[in-house]
């Protein structure tokens, strides 16, 4: 085994959080090695016209993880036999330098105390009995006030285009009226809505809702971030979601924090480095570094470090903790154990609207375009009691590219092939718009992650096993969101309407969301969580975890905002407090 010299920090994964921490630590003079299992990034990766290939990139998913390297096994209930996620579908993980930030849509939200204090909030307003016994929600132990400046920093670094709705308590017209107070405006004005967004916004407003432009990492104007990184102006090219941006108009780690870290002499990025295990000393309470395989040579390597930080996609962080045997595995029967607990996903619903007399040009789009409303999620005044759920959903338009293999909508009842199909596809391609909802998922005792007893990855390690389904709470959220969508759709008076229907059970087949959360949750003490609010593992002081695996539940919002903000907060306390006096940052 090849053994490297010890460094101050080893980062597992080179996406947003690895890039953020790599930059912050190396600029503070710490020696950092970042290990990325995928390949390097060059600007040529996204060269045009080859990047604008729907078949290769959007359909065969050339930018995503290869399931033959590693995947998960899936089942809805623990009474079933889990089977491999053989072909990507429901969620799409990225790989290589930049990780999912290379292909993401860029939707970036500031989660607030509605979520961070979820159990307290609901118990106070609706009473303890309102929360089902099998719903394992808990307060996070972090507050919006602590994260505000870090949200602000990330919005500037990643280049978020949007309009503020609340600056220091003052409501601003045009923004999200339900957002928590911000210290300042977004760095860029919002994108245009497009015709579908215009229609949705006008009608939703008439119905008394509060639509606004979805906050997203697509540069609405030419932009230079605080580190001097230049963003091109978004051209609404329609090749954004699942694609890389050749114009650097979509903020990603590969074009912002990682190049900035690479300018520091003390930062080293090692690609094709697949970490297989976090190593600990004999006490088990101190990490000594990580073992990885160089996937080019096959050589096994050990990288010693004073501090180990897991910065991979959330599911992979959980998997690595399990493969390293750190922490007690969650048992759904006894409710004991914390590793793998509170795995969550998202729900939602969608309608398609067809208009004889409108032109939507669905290909004039970005992955973040559209009008959206937060009346049934961020709006705490929305009374959930009549619906009986915890959480909520955001509702808006999601016209992300109009690429025709995946976008050729036809009214219900039209045949799927033949002359009639051709006529319908030709007629409606340009005359259709959608309205979609993204809904929260609350943790349930029966939803969890553990190791599969049968299936293995390319290194012979057990795959992670995902046991997940929607429970009553999620079905109620989905049904409510479908009702809202159908109300707005009816008010738009389309020629045909494919109505929104509630999701009942989770299927791994159609794409839904890459917002897989939980498994190494944060909390207030070692009895209810794997880490504290800084991602510091209670049981191993010098091991930290970043990413959405820290989330004790999932919201209707996209996860990247708090993922990045928590990383910045952790970076600050590690640089300023931990390195001077290594040990527990919180005693509980």
């Amino acid at each position, binding site marked *: 085994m090849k053994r490297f010299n010890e460094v101050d920090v080893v980062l597992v994964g080179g996406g947003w959080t690895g890039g953020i921490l790599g930059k912050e630590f190396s600029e503070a003079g710490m020696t950092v090695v970042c290990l990325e299992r995928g390949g390097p990034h060059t600007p040529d990766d996204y060269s045009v016209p080859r990047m604008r290939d729907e078949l290769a990139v959007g359909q065969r998913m050339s930018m995503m993880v290869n399931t033959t390297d590693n995947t998960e096994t899936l089942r809805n209930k623990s009474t079933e036999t889990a089977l491999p996620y053989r072909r990507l579908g429901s969620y799409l993980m990225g790989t290589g330098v930049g990780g999912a930030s290379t292909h993401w849509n860029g939707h970036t939200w500031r989660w607030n105390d509605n979520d961070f204090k979820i159990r307290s909030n609901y118990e106070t307003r609706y009473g303890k009995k309102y929360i089902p016994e099998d719903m394992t929600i808990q307060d996070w132990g972090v507050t919006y006030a602590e994260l505000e400046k870090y949200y602000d920093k990330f919005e500037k670094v990643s280049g978020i285009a949007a309009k503020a709705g609340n600056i220091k308590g003052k409501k601003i017209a045009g923004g999200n009226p339900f957002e928590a107070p911000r210290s300042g405006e977004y760095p860029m004005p919002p994108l245009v809505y497009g015709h579908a967004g215009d229609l949705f916004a006008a009608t939703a407003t008439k119905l008394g809702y509060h639509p606004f432009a979805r906050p997203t990492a697509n540069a609405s104007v030419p932009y230079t971030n605080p580190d001097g990184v230049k963003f091109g102006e978004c051209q609404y090219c329609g090749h954004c979601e699942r694609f890389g941006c050749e114009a650097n108009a979509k903020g990603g780690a590969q074009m912002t924090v990682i190049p900035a870290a690479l300018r520091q002499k003390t930062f080293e990025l090692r690609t094709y480095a697949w970490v297989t295990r976090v190593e600990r000393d004999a006490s088990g309470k101190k990490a000594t570094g990580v073992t990885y395989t160089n996937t080019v040579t096959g050589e096994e390597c050990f990288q010693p470090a004073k501090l180990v930080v897991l910065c991979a996609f959330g599911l992979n962080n959980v998997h690595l903790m399990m493969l390293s045997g750190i922490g007690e595995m969650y048992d759904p029967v006894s409710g004991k154990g914390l590793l793998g607990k509170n795995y969550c996903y998202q729900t939602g619903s969608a309608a398609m609207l067809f208009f004889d007399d409108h032109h939507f040009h669905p290909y004039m789009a970005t992955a973040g375009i559209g009008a959206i409303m937060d009346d049934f999620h961020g709006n705490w005044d929305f009374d959930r009691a009549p619906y009986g759920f915890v959480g909520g959903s955001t509702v808006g338009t999601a016209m992300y590219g109009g690429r025709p293999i995946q976008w050729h909508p036809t009214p219900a009842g039209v045949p799927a092939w033949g002359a009639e199909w051709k*006529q319908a596809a030709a007629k409606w391609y340009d005359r259709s718009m959608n309205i979609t909802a993204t809904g929260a998922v609350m943790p349930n005792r029966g939803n969890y992650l553990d190791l599969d007893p049968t299936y293995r990855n390319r290194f012979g390690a057990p795959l992670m096993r995902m046991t997940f389904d929607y429970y009553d709470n999620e079905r109620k959220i989905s049904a409510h969101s479908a009702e809202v969508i159908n109300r707005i759709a009816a008010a738009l008076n389309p020629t045909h309407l494919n109505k929104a229907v509630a999701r009942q059970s989770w299927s791994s087949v159609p794409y839904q969301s890459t917002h897989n959360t939980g498994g190494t949750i944060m909390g207030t003490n070692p009895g209810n969580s794997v880490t504290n609010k800084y991602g510091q593992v209670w049981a191993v002081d010098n091991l930290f975890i970043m990413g959405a695996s820290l989330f004790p539940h999932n919201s209707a919002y996209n996860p990247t905002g708090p993922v990045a903000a928590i990383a910045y907060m952790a970076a600050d306390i590690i640089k300023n407090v931990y390195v001077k006096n290594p040990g527990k940052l919180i005693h509980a």
Partner: protein
Amino acid sequence: MSDTSDQQPRRDFLLRSLAVGAGAARLPLAGAAATAAAPATAAAPAPAPAGYLWLRPDEQAFVEALVNHMCPADPLTPNGMDLGLNLFYDRALGGNWGQGDRLYLQGPFKKGSANQGYQLGMTPAQLFRAGTEGLAAYCAATYQKPFDRLPAEAREAVLKGLQGGKIELANGVPAATYFAQLLQMFYEAMFADPIYGGNRDKQGWKMVGYPGVNTANKVNIVKFSNKPYRPEPAGIADLS
């Protein structure tokens, strides 16, 4: 050209070719049936028909009939073969994706729930081949004719039967899974960049009004908001 009604002589042509000499017919040409009747000395039509790389002759006949059925000639586009859809199937099945790229194929293989997704131990190419064998047996038993010789109504009934899982394939291939792949490939063939063989002359894109890689819309999204706009599409080859 390339009509595949029940009068279609394509299968006969293939069988004849095979009978004449194995070497001569080892790589039958797409659309060869239509040119076979022409004198050997006729000037080559443009564009030259492309050959098959992966599909066997019986599979070629099936795919040609399938794509002409799914995409009949009408005022919107020529028929499926004239769009090159059959070639898309050939290239896709013979290429990386068809051969199982990015598909986790470690066993054991078990029939899962619908929510668990694809669980067969077969690559897309293997699924196509086994499914098409099963379908040939079904058509022979039911109609005493191969799919490509069936009239349009019978073809439609067969495809609907596969889609709904109402047809059981004797070799055990799940009919709905097989058909879902055929149908997904049809959309891909219609709308993928022409560089992959289908969507010839960007006619699939023209049919719906998709501009391909012509995509600088910063001005257009405002200028043409809710107004008709049909730019001439461009493909990868046009910009390379």
